[in-house]
């Protein structure tokens, strides 16, 4: 719904642009839009192209040299360890996205619908608070919490349980990913849930849905776009994260991001690292496109049906 409004607003803006049809408007866009385009071109698109080109280069005597060889692609695509790492990264990121989505939802629901606007703003500030400390510091804190001799195991020990291995494995990595993405997921969900028209919720009650049924029949469909975008961002951030698998995941077996570092450290294999990086970029590109198609496609389909 918010989406359609945006579309309409966008259409309106375009129309006024046409109506005034002025060069000054184009100049305005140029002045304010230009730097962003320039920035993205210089620091995102150009390196991406360069990275892609580099996948065809060779390394001779620890020296990078321009070339056109498929050897790097063959080496990586044929290596089991690369595919293992790929699946491990995808699994960790998928778990993080799924868990964050499910865990954040009740909190976002409560803050978004059951509190006064004032409490909601306070809640949003608290959600953002973790951004004020470095992520590295937060992951090291988790080490002391989750380590074999850590706080959690000590407490479980009093109950006669454990010790459990909670770091240097997938569990540790996922805890790290969740630490990274939870605030963002919570915020995106909060914004989309608090944007739901209250009358729709009352209409559902009026048509026989108790609050629990209303969650599944109105709130989740109503906040669908925000929930999907939040989960997508969670996956994207976790998939590329290096700190969690290093500090909490133990680096071994590696994820794709660790593999990239290894390739460079081990033999200055920039071209192979680039192959892995391209694989990651393509994966995320496909995923984000699918998510966008899901979110924005829904409303285009609707519009077409008209």
């Amino acid at each position, binding site marked *: 719904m918010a989406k359609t409004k945006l579309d309409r607003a966008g259409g309106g803006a375009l129309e006024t642009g046409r109506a005034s049809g002025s060069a000054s408007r184009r100049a305005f866009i140029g002045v304010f839009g230009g730097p962003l385009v320039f920035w993205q071109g210089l620091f995102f698109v150009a390196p991406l192209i360069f990275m892609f080109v580099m996948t065809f280069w060779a390394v001779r005597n620890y020296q990078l040299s321009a070339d056109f060889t498929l050897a790097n692609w063959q080496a990586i695509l044929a290596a089991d360890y690369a595919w293992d790492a790929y699946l491990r990264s995808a699994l960790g990121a998928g778990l993080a996205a799924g868990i964050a989505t499910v865990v954040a939802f009740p909190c976002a629901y409560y803050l978004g619908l059951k509190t006064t606007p004032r409490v909601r703003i306070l809640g949003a500030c608290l959600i953002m608070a973790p951004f004020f400390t470095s992520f590295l510091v937060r992951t090291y804190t988790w080490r002391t919490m989750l380590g074999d001799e850590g706080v959690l195991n000590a407490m479980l020990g009093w109950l006669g349980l454990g010790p459990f291995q909670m770091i240097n494995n997938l569990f540790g990595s996922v805890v790290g990913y969740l630490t990274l993405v939870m605030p963002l997921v919570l915020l995106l969900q909060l914004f989309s849930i608090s944007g739901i028209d209250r009358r729709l919720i009352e209409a559902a*009650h009026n*048509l026989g849905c108790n609050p629990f049924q209303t969650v599944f029949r109105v709130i989740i469909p109503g906040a669908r776009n925000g929930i999907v975008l939040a989960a997508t961002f969670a996956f994207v951030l976790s998939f590329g994260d290096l700190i969690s698998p290093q500090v909490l995941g133990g680096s071994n077996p590696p994820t794709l991001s660790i593999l990239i570092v290894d390739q460079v450290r081990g033999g200055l294999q920039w071209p192979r690292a680039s192959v892995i990086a391209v694989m990651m970029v393509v994966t995320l590109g496909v995923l984000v496109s699918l998510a966008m198609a899901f979110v924005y496609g829904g409303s285009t389909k609707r519009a077409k049906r008209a």
Partner: protein
Amino acid sequence: MTADASATDDENAALLRFTNVQKKFGDSFAVRDFNLEIGRGDFVAIMGPSGCGKTTTLRMLAGLEHPTAGEIRRNGEMINGLSPWLRRMPLVWQNYALFPFLTVLENVEFGLRNDKVSKIDRRRRASEWLDRLGIGDLGHRSPTTLSGGQAQRVALARALVLEPEVLLLDEPLSALDANMVVRMQTEIAQLQKALGITFVYVTHNQSEAFAMANRVVIMNQGKIEQVGEPLEVYRLPKTRFVAEFVGTNNIIDGTIVSHSPSGVVVETKLGQFVSTNPIDGTLGEASRVHIIASADLVSVSQDRPKDSKNVVTARLIGESFAGTIVILVFEAAGGQELKVQLQQRALQDLSLDPNQEFHLVFEPMDTLVIPSV
């Protein structure tokens, strides 16, 4: 015999009954001293200016607000605290509140999904209602693509598919254009007759209420001012507020001079008025009252009538035309404004010069006396 009598009593018990219902938001009353009975099959229109508590009353019926005092009963059973999802009293919302993420058909099916109805049956019943309301071809559309009139029909179908005992409507026509309003009015009134369902219809538009309802409730500042059949409320307003709110009424302040079987005589600054209408029994001599005369029941003449009672001499200060109806505005002694509503044809006998003096005649049987509060 006695058993029989009590059985009929039960059947005749009001479908809905408000007893001293009150709703406060913080320190202010949205609804107070609310007493009303609504019978089975009634078409009740709740009317009043914006902010007078109409929506709050309807929301209390739907269970979306709970009274802070008093009782609401349905079929004799108290429903004050009953959750909205257990009431089956669907509400047609002012802005429809259709679910934008569902198709039209899915919207109409929505309420049936909590019934134990098979999916096929659900579809069929929803489609039948869409057909019945003339929008059978819109089932697959998104509600965001509908016109106001179409959305209104979807909202009606979504509520009626539940086959409820009571349908609640909150200014359902307020977002439609004038032509559409008249059409939907007719449709809604016919639908209510055909279904025999009780309709509680909130509006701030009197022509809507008078066109459809068999009972109207006039509210002001959270209280009921008057309840009655439309014509009764229109012709016999009980309070100054109702007289001002419905129709076009002339209101003149006065004091009762005498009180006899042949009529009530009221002294006003425009002279004496006689009313042959019954008055509130508590009104004695010297009571302060208002004279109420509907603008369409006052006659205008250029020659002075013989009897001087119930005649006011006034100067024409304006006229406004609405189709074939003309409203003449006069000014009498002391700046008192008086309105006369005439058919366009009746004007041909009068020569209308501004500032000319006319004699306005108030028939005793068309003159009401109500207490001044």
